[in-house]
């Protein structure tokens, strides 16, 4: 796909620009000054606004000979319409011609099956519609900017992501703004999230059935009497976007508009349209006898929504190649003589013509919408074919494929590995001791069993311990039960039912410090284990300080909690601190171990370094 190519060009003596956009398969000429409505009256609409020619409709290109004074290009379409553009210089002409030729070749090969009839579609003169350029809303998947480095560098993306995610924003403010964690470090652990957000941003709402969304509010004076021709008034709010979409989805409306608006006022056209049978038909509603006739709009009733008459449609269908395997006539098994046409409601004679047209309208519309979404990203013809084959395949007649499991075999005996490397080897000297111990252990066991040679009653009563032991055991069991009961209750009551207010504050602070601490730990380990010397210098010392600070912060929360306690008894305070500390002990341990690992490593590596340096320098410093 090339970039759009444009040159200034005159058409019918008016200044304008000719644009070739191969992505959209059209050549478009638009006037440089806004067209004036009064200018046209001839109804064909070519002269009024922009001229749009589909690339695959171009049948011939003809440039004026080089000797000619004016550089002109004549485009002949398949429907034998000719357009002559005048470009300022000869060079421009040659360039335009080359671009058109190559684009035409490319597009005609890719979309040969396109309908030839909608070749010349003069663009509407509605300012809103003309200004919005690309009607076919392609899906743009941003393949660029999804690499890790790009995502890390894309600050606007990060900001928009933070705005969309409140929790993360809080964390960002706390960790990056508050605790001076480099933003890159913060995002490095969240690259998948960024990528996701970038993809989310790239998504756009697809086209939808516009007419269904436009809800005219009719304030009819005499319709209630059932009289017929009352002065109906309709209130419709139409945005330019909606008008554009209506034109796109229903070319027949565009045609009616183009052919009638110069005599009619625009507002009058739309109000008549929304009251007309045409609108009802396009919406898929039934046309009643009571509907007001409209001599302008009713002309288009017999056309289908693409603005074609029945004959034209037939012609088109003939031209369109019917897939062999969906061609009913080609398939002997699908003989309508067997069951008749009865099963297919669209084939019944009694079926009302309106019903059929509704079905048809809806089907066409959905197809169109789907096609426009798929846009240019068309599957190759082969794939489409395969897809159709798969849809038609009778899968339930296929034999059931058996699920085959993959067997895994433990090749190397782990026993060998275990005994050799478990480090439990006992030296030979100990063997004797152990041997005698083994028999001794056995002896005591058998002795104790045979000693109980009294009655079984005696044996059983020996199992009953002292009452203090029983109460100790009892208290252990009930401690477990109580703690589990509390968790159960908390789960059912939605958490902190019996937490005192001082605890609530502590809990909040603790949660915050904990989240921050975990964040720093995450970054610390990923930086440490990355093994990159660059990060060791830039990020690690900073992260270690943050890790240590996190620890002091958590401890400060604990101290605050204890000091806020009403009780002054040191024993109670110590007990309280122990209780609360229990909640965060794991975090504290993790922070401690991270800091310790780092400092041990620093010590070790510095020692190794100095050793290496002294080794290097000693022989050099004392030359022999």
């Amino acid at each position: 796909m090339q970039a759009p190519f444009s040159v200034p060009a005159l058409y019918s003596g008016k200044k304008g620009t000719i644009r070739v956009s191969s992505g959209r398969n059209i050549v478009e000429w638009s006037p440089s000054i806004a067209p004036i409505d009064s200018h046209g009256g001839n109804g064909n609409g070519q002269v009024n606004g922009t001229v749009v020619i589909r690339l695959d409709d171009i049948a011939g290109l003809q440039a004026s000979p080089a000797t000619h004074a004016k550089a002109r290009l004549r485009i002949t379409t398949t429907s034998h319409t000719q357009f002559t553009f005048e470009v300022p210089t000869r060079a421009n002409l040659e360039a335009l011609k080359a671009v058109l030729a190559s684009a035409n070749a490319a597009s005609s090969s890719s979309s040969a099956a396109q309908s030839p009839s909608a070749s010349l579609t003069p663009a509407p003169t509605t300012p809103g519609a003309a200004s919005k350029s690309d009607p076919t809303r392609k899906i743009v998947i941003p393949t660029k900017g999804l690499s890790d480095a790009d995502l890390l560098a894309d600050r606007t993306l990060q900001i928009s992501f933070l705005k969309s995610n409140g929790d993360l924003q809080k964390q960002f403010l706390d960790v990056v703004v508050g605790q001076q964690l480099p933003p890159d470090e913060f995002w490095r652990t969240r690259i998948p999230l960024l990528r996701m957000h970038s993809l989310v941003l790239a998504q756009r709402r697809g086209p939808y059935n516009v007419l269904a969304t436009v809800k005219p509010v009719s304030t009819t004076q005499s319709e209630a009497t059932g009289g017929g021709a009352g002065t109906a008034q309709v209130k419709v709010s139409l945005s330019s976007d909606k008008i554009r979409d209506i034109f796109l989805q229903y070319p027949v409306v565009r045609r009616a508009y183009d052919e009638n608006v110069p005599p009619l006022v625009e507002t009058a056209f739309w109000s008549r349209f929304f009251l007309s049978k045409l609108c009802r038909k396009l919406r898929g509603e039934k046309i009643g006898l009571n509907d007001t006739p409209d001599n302008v709009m009713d002309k288009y009733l017999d056309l289908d929504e693409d603005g074609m008459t029945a004959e034209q449609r037939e012609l088109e269908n003939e031209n369109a190649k019917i897939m062999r395997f969906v061609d009913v006539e080609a398939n002997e098994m699908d003989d309508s003589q067997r069951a008749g046409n009865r099963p297919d409601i669209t084939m019944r004679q009694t079926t009302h013509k309106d019903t059929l047209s509704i079905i048809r309208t809806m089907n066409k519309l959905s197809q169109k919408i789907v096609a426009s979404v798929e846009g240019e990203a068309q599957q190759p013809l082969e794939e489409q074919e395969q897809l159709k084959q798969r849809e038609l395949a009778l899968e339930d007649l296929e034999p059931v494929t058996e699920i085959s499991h993959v067997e895994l075999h433990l090749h190397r005996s782990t026993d060998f590995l275990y005994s050799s490397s478990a480090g439990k080897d006992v030296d030979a000297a100990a063997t004797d001791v152990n041997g005698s111990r083994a028999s001794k252990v056995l002896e005591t066991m058998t002795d104790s069993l045979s000693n109980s040679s009294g009655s079984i009653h005696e044996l059983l009563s020996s199992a009953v311990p002292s009452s203090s032991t029983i109460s100790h055991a009892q208290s252990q069991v009930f401690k477990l039960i109580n703690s589990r009961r509390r968790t159960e209750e908390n789960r059912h009551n939605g958490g902190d039912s019996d937490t005192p207010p001082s605890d609530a504050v502590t809990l909040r602070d603790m949660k915050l410090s904990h989240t921050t601490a975990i964040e720093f730990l995450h970054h610390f380990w990923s930086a440490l284990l990355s093994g990159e010397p660059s990060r060791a210098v830039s990020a690690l010392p900073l992260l270690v300080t943050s890790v240590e600070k996190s620890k002091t912060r958590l401890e400060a929360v604990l101290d605050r909690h204890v000091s806020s306690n009403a009780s002054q008894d040191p024993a109670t305070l110590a007990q309280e601190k122990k209780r609360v500390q229990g909640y965060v002990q794991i975090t504290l341990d993790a922070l401690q171990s991270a800091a310790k690992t780092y400092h041990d490593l620093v010590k070790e590596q510095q020692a190794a370094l100095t050793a290496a340096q002294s080794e290097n320098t000693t022989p050099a410093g004392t030359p022999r």
Partner: protein
Amino acid sequence: MNAVDGSSHVPQAGFASELEEELPSLLVLILDTSPLGWGAQSPAISLHEAVASLLIFINSHLALNHSNEVAVIASHTNCVKYLYPVPGEDYSKLVPKSTATSGTESSEEMITNVQSNGDNGTLNDASMYRQFRVVNESVMKQLELLLLGTSASDIEHNGKISDATLISGALSTSLAYINRLVGGVNDNGPKVRARIMVVSVCSDLASQYVPIMNCIFAAQKMKVPIDICKIGNDTVFLQQAADTTGGVYMHLEHPRGMIQYLMTAFLPDRALRKHLIIPTQSSIDFRAACFCHNRIVDIGYVCNICLSIYCQPPADGSCAICDTIFDPKELAELLKKPVVVTTTVPKNKTKKKKKKDSDATPTFAPAL
């Protein structure tokens, strides 16, 4: 005692579950008889004392329902043995001939037992319920036989006393036993409700990681809870067993009071536990053992194809189980040593043994 009532937290039992509650229950007791294991507990509790408590517990279980059943399996150092019921033993012959025709328990039967079992050792007692007596005698007798039959060389391995116990074997045996009894599901559903209880004194089971985990998952599938009564040090995999299958894990802080633990924590059967808050530990050690050295690992490496666990990236760059060859680049990435000090000298080769953090990579992702 209100604390144990958990019924407010469960939906009202429907009719179907009420029916289920009337089912008899089967208790399979696995007794760890590792001599060294019990030797280590010696001042606190001896095997003999524990067995006495367990017999009372078993008798209570049998007393709860006339059709309740029990099986006792010893998990010894070198073998797994049924203590009750003993294969080939016909327990009905203990019933004296005079009452055998009636088929029901009666006071008369208990009196006649005295004569018929007069030769049957010193454990005989006329005033004992027959089923209790059968179990008690069988367990004591078989346990004695087992210990007497164990020579010093059996528990000695590679010149040291093995404290191993075949828990995985015992679990498999008990699952097979349960399957035999419950497996015949007829139209009325299962005939019994089974559970397993393990009395464990052994702490190191790392070498049996895979078989134990397989047993745990089998039990989970059969809906058989595994209760753990733990004496001595905590054992990693047994905690997981109780947690996965919905059983009770109880570490006895006061082993002498074992009978109290058994009666309060382990006696309620499966149907009853729905209505109770069961006293099990809330913190569970979920660590795994690596397949290569049977070490228990905090952070390990997992093969992305077969999920085998390794404590360090395999030296030959391929998985020992499924032979998947790992990307050498990714392996090198995993083996990178942390660098904390940089110098102007570019060749800073710091050799340092270092545990890897859970930095996930696509090829070889660490576990836990």
